[in-house]
């Protein structure tokens, strides 16, 4: 690619770093993803609940996997994306990065909570306990606390740029810590007792189970994009309230 072309490609991507240009794009994205997400989730759940075969060992109770596993994946994935935006905000100091990180946090916390809650519901019939101090459960719980900390820190600082920066440092610190937390907890658990349930020895999954789980995962992913875009739009309107284009936009809306 020639230099001129490269420059053009770069400028066309970085164009969206500005709230003015990103605002309409976020609107389009949220509408598109907001329509696709429920469709995919519904199809995925239909396959999960009616098409996928009953598990030989866990019976029907295993079917919560179609919500539990996608939610758990999203909870971790969103934290990484959030920390990425936070780091981007610290390095290249774009206003939008902090807003993206803030917009993702509640969704990440929601998926973490769903993963924990459905995990408890799944654990009761299969393990006989709502909660066991398994490494995964404990790390997921700490992940939830990290999300809460991020949101609480942001909420307690009035100046939004300062709040973005402080929360970004926390998000990056958390990202460095998550693997350490996971391995320390795993080690702690194995030191005391053998794992009560091994995920790795589970029978290989039927194709329909896998399809259902993947569809729900993509659905959750699109939902996260949609809801984050809606939140980013609100944040842009709040923070850029004094700029003329926001005033023009609001006049057009009302």
């Amino acid at each position, binding site marked *: 690619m020639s230099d001129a072309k490269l420059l053009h490609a770069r400028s066309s991507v970085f164009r969206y770093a500005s709230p003015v240009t990103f605002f309409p794009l976020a609107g389009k994205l949220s509408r598109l993803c907001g329509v696709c997400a429920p469709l995919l989730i519904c199809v995925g759940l239909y396959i999960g609940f009616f098409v996928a075969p009953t598990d030989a060992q866990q019976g029907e109770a295993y079917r919560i996997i179609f919500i539990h596993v996608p939610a758990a994946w999203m909870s971790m994935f969103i934290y990484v994306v959030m920390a990425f935006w936070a780091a981007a905000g*610290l390095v290249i100091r774009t206003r939008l990065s902090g807003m993206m990180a803030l917009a993702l946090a509640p969704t990440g916390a929601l998926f973490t909570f769903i993963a924990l809650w459905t995990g408890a519901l799944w654990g009761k019939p299969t393990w006989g306990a709502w909660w066991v101090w398994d490494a995964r459960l404990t790390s997921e719980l*700490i992940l939830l*606390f*990290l999300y*809460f*900390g991020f949101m*609480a*820190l942001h909420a*307690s*600082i*009035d100046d939004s740029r*300062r709040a973005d*920066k*402080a929360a970004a*440092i*926390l998000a*990056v*610190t*958390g990202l*460095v*810590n998550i693997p*350490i*937390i996971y391995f*320390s*907890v795993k*080690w*702690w658990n194995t*030191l005391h007792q053998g794992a009560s349930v091994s995920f790795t020895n589970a029978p290989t999954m039927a194709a329909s189970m896998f399809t259902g789980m993947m569809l729900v995962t993509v659905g959750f992913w699109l939902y996260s994009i949609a809801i984050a875009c809606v939140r980013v739009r609100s944040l842009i309107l709040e923070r850029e309230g004094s700029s003329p284009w926001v005033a023009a936009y609001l006049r057009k809306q009302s």
Partner: protein
Amino acid sequence: MMTVLVCIVRRDLLVATRRRADVLTAVVFFAVVVSLFPLATTPDAELLRNIGPGVVWVAALLSSVLTLPRLFSVDHTDGTLDQMLLSASPIGAIVSGKIIAHWLTAGLPLVVLSPVLALQFDLAPGAMLALTSSLFLGTPVLSLIGAIGAALTLGARGAGVLVSLLVLPLYVPVLVLGTGLVNAAGAGLDTSAHFMLLTAMIVSACVLAPWAVSTALRGAA
């Protein structure tokens, strides 16, 4: 750079000796919390031996969190911190000096006190030694990670409660390894892995934490 660091440590220690109550409160808090656990459970020696290391460690965590707000807030309020940040001295040295002073006033007293508290829980001499050495290696990490929380919450609303929410989840690995060391020593297992991992944590926290604290302080000041 070393002169700045030593100067800051001496200055903060001097300030701490002028406000002895601040230092003593955290130490007394540590002792009181630890002493409450036998009252809340049973005086059964077998049970106390099992929970002892964990109780002492959790109390150390809480006591450390309790002292964090005073790490920067006093200097922030009277403008000293702004002057320090504006000075030509490297900010990393200033921050490291403050963290070292915090450990000397808030971490080291707990380490010194821990054998006495271990007696309350009827720990064997080996476990007692392990507890003290695990606290000796662990409390610097608490000061280092805690400083990040203290710097981030500087000037924030409800900083005292907020800092515990931010910092306690990040303390988990230290807690796990610290209590793990004592339990392993109590069971007669090899503890070298625990020692190495705790030391690795100090080293990596020494490298990363001052940077994060400096960035946070520049944002807050």
